[in-house]
């Protein structure tokens, strides 16, 4: 362990702002890529499911029409 206390660790020998800026931005950017990847997959599943439901409705409506 290189630091004696937690405040020592946060201070990073006077370079705290730059070190935590770097690690913070890295975490945010990697997190954004992860969230975007998961969100895109969920949105696609939703849109495919909705398309299928719409096609089913159209098919059902056509059947009703034919019966009349």
């Amino acid at each position, binding site marked *: 362990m290189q630091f004696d206390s937690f405040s020592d660790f946060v201070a990073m020998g006077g370079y705290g702002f730059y070190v935590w800026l770097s*690690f913070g931005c*890295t975490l945010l950017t990697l997190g954004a890529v992860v969230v975007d990847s998961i969100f895109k997959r969920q949105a*696609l*599943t939703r849109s495919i499911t909705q398309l299928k439901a719409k096609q089913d409705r159209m098919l059902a409506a056509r059947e009703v029409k034919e019966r009349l």
Partner: protein
Amino acid sequence: MWKWLHPYAKPEASFRLAGAFVPWFTALAVLCLSVGTVWGLLFAPSDYQQGDSFRIIYVHVPAAILSMGAYLTMAIAGFIALVWQIKQSEIFVAAVAPIGAGFTFIALLTGAAWGKPMWGTWWVWDARLTSELILLFLYLGVIALYNAFDDKALAGRSASILSLVGVINLPIIHYSVEWWNTLHQGASITKFAKPSIDSAMLWPLLLNIVGFGAFLGALSLVRFRTELLKREQRRPWVRQLLLGTGEA
């Protein structure tokens, strides 16, 4: 000899294969990044010249190396897509680009945050920094080009060509610190001689490099699967997978 590879050209098979790799890459990424980062921040000795500001190396160098590694991966996929016209390769180009752009962004930002206390400036228009910025623009170009066409076959081909053209930037980035006068220091580990960094500092760095690589592997496969599903959404296998029905 390579015949066992042929069945994976089927979209359904490559979708499954990609899915099988995702949990392993994810586990490796989480493990390496957490151990490497904690080790680097808490246990690695501070630098005799730079003090604790050198700890930025544990995100800066992995992001920078993998920003180039991701580009090379993307360009190889683009080459395969153009020569053998394999659709999955085009999709992989589109899948890697946003992650590579993220890595490049991290490399530039942490580089600025390291440059300010050490060089006295956030940014200089020197060869290493400028060529890395061009790499970011190349990634953004590939992403924009792929999204610009509704015809995804055309989009994939265009993005592949741009990614191939941009490869010229990779040796320029790597050798920029030797070819031109620059504030940026030379290579410490990516050279043939013994690394000019002590092993107590090197180990967490190597862990984070592997971690960033595994992150790239996991996320590019996740994005590859999504894009493949999107391109194949009218095919029966996708319907069956997502809706549990064989009927389209």
